[in-house]
């Protein structure tokens, strides 16, 4: 016990003396939490639009006005030649072209119908898709307004119409920050828990202190606990700092209880600490540990449901996410923060993470040897 306490003291001393690690633990989360959620925005803004107007009528003017007033589009060029607009796309100055045909107003009034042409630059698929969809909605809206001006609609619509008005539960305003911020927090906790631990242990190997420690009568479990406990505590500290920040900056307060989150986080950290330990027992240098960590982090983030929904992944990828501890925590933290889930609702994820913790730690302890 005395040995363990002394090991912990030494470990904390080293952590607090290392300015770079301190910065990584405290400044990085703050920056990531404050900056990233604003940048990682699902909403498309500033879509650059080129309009080719062959009509130049009051109606086309009104349409253009309506589109630019929506706030989603930046009017890049307003021209009468499609070639000009295409050139803008080729030079990557425009994402979308909307072509208004000649006699647009006349056809619309006379024949009750008119066509518009839309060309999307699909190099950035997301932008093209969303931009196209936004534009379509605006045009439909415009269409309805035009009709309202002409026709005095009867009180009851003669044709049956189904109008869908969605209502977003748990996040009524679809504020993407509410689900991005907790997700990013999970990534940060994972970084501290697994990769800092791995790097720390591998550094001891690299510097040679590991060998010096190995010739001492120190017990394996003392050494391992001495490494895990500090980072377990640091992980929980980062989580706390993160929640504080998301309250200050974004006003996010979990609907569910903090107890649920911390119980899950405490066990989750055990699992990722085990992962860090495992990496450290297979890596001989900090470079190796960094590369392994980097590779794993990429997979963890992309298959975690942080940015893209797991449900929309192909089936094999969905199976892979079952092995991704990050995915479980992101799921849980969103359930608790947005929906207010309690321990009994996240029972399934909790059990799985306990499984992860047991397997990873057992594997790591087994493969950690004091001699070769």
């Amino acid at each position, binding site marked *: 016990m005395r040995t363990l306490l002394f090991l912990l003291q030494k470990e904390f001393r080293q952590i607090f003396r290392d300015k770079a690690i301190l910065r990584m633990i405290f400044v990085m989360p703050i920056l990531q939490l404050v900056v990233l959620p604003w940048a990682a925005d699902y909403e498309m803004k500033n879509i650059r639009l080129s309009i080719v107007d062959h009509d130049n009528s009051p109606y086309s003017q009104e349409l253009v006005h309506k589109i630019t007033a929506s706030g989603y589009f930046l009017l890049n060029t307003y021209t009468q030649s499609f070639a000009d607009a295409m050139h803008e796309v080729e030079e990557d100055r425009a994402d979308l072209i909307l072509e208004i045909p000649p006699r647009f107003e006349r056809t619309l009034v006379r024949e009750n119908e008119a066509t518009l042409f839309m060309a999307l630059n699909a190099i950035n698929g997301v932008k093209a898709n969303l931009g196209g969809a936004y534009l379509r909605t605006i045009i439909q809206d415009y269409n309805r307004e035009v009709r309202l001006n002409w026709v005095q609609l009867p009180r009851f619509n003669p044709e049956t119409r189904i109008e869908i008005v969605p209502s977003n539960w748990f996040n009524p305003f679809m504020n993407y920050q509410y689900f991005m911020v907790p997700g990013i927090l999970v990534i940060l906790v994972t970084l501290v828990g697994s990769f800092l631990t791995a790097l720390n242990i591998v550094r001891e190997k690299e510097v040679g202190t590991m060998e010096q*420690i190995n010739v001492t009568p120190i017990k394996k479990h003392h050494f391992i606990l001495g490494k895990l406990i500090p980072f377990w505590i640091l992980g929980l500290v980062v989580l706390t700092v993160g929640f504080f920040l998301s309250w200050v900056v974004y006003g996010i307060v979990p609907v569910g209880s903090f107890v649920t989150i911390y119980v899950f986080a405490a066990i989750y950290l055990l699992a990722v600490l085990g992962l860090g330990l495992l990496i450290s027992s297979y890596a001989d240098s900090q470079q190796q540990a960094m590369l392994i960590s980097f590779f794993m982090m990429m997979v963890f983030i992309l298959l975690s449901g942080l940015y893209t929904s797991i449900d929309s992944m192909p089936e094999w990828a969905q199976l892979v996410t079952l092995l991704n501890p990050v995915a479980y925590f992101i799921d849980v933290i969103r359930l608790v923060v947005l929906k207010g889930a309690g321990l009994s609702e996240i029972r399934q994820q909790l059990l799985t993470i306990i499984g992860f913790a047991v397997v990873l730690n057992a594997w790591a302890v087994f493969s950690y040897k004091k*001699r070769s």
Partner: protein
Amino acid sequence: MSTAVKADNLEKRYGTKKEVTHALKGVSFEVERGELFGIIGPDGAGKTSLFRILTTLLVPEGGQAQVDGYDVVEDYREIRKRVGYMPGRFSLYQDLTVEENLKFFATIFHTTVGENYDLIKDIYEQIEPFKDRKAGKLSGGMKQKLALSCALIHRPSVLFLDEPTTGVDAVSRKEFWEMLRKLKEQGITILVSTPYMDEASLCDRVALIQTGEIMSINTPEGIIRDFENPLVAVKADNMFRLLKDLQSFPGLFDSYAFGEYHHAVLQKENQQQELQAYLQEQQHESLELQQIKPDVEDCFIALMKTDS
């Protein structure tokens, strides 16, 4: 006196099937309690592998070894309690201070700095003025003293020093050997490895090791005594031509450059005149020739020659 360290036919190989490095090819020796035992050999001779086996960091592939009466494979836990190991590379915590490092090693050996302070007093006093400095910021000589203090803090019965004087200046080296002398007086068995032949004479007994094999174990005097051939130091203006001419001298056993002189090992006694006449015949200017006593390096070179 009993045996402190006993190695019996130790074997160690590295690498996979394709490329195997045979680091130790059946190494056997015994070290008496309280002895200062030197393991001397060039880089890559297997010194570090041997030390790593004896300090239980490495498992040998063949043979047996006992340290302080305990088997290095079976009773490695006991050995770890009673040996001190100072690896060739400085491996203490660079970001902890001198004092913190010492305390740390004392604690993990379940002892305190105070308990064995008398043992390290002479060494630690020299670095005590810097006890609040981080270990990484110490000079080479001070790092070495700190490492030695940390290796001694639990009063080990056997001390393993792996190339402690490599990369250390001449004055510090001398000081270091002085410290080892004093430790030996305290009854600690010391095993020290070094690539420097001139340090051999400072040990009680030495083992000369080369490519994983021990060539000779003896006292430094004994090793020199075993050198039977007469040895001549030769010097002339054109040293390069001199070496070539030496090699074509029929009565020669071996010749090699040795500092300012060339050393020539002759096959028989009283060949010196013969050699002088031979070299004068080759018209060497300002020729100097004198019979000298061999030192350990000469013995090492001779042993290498007979082995191959």
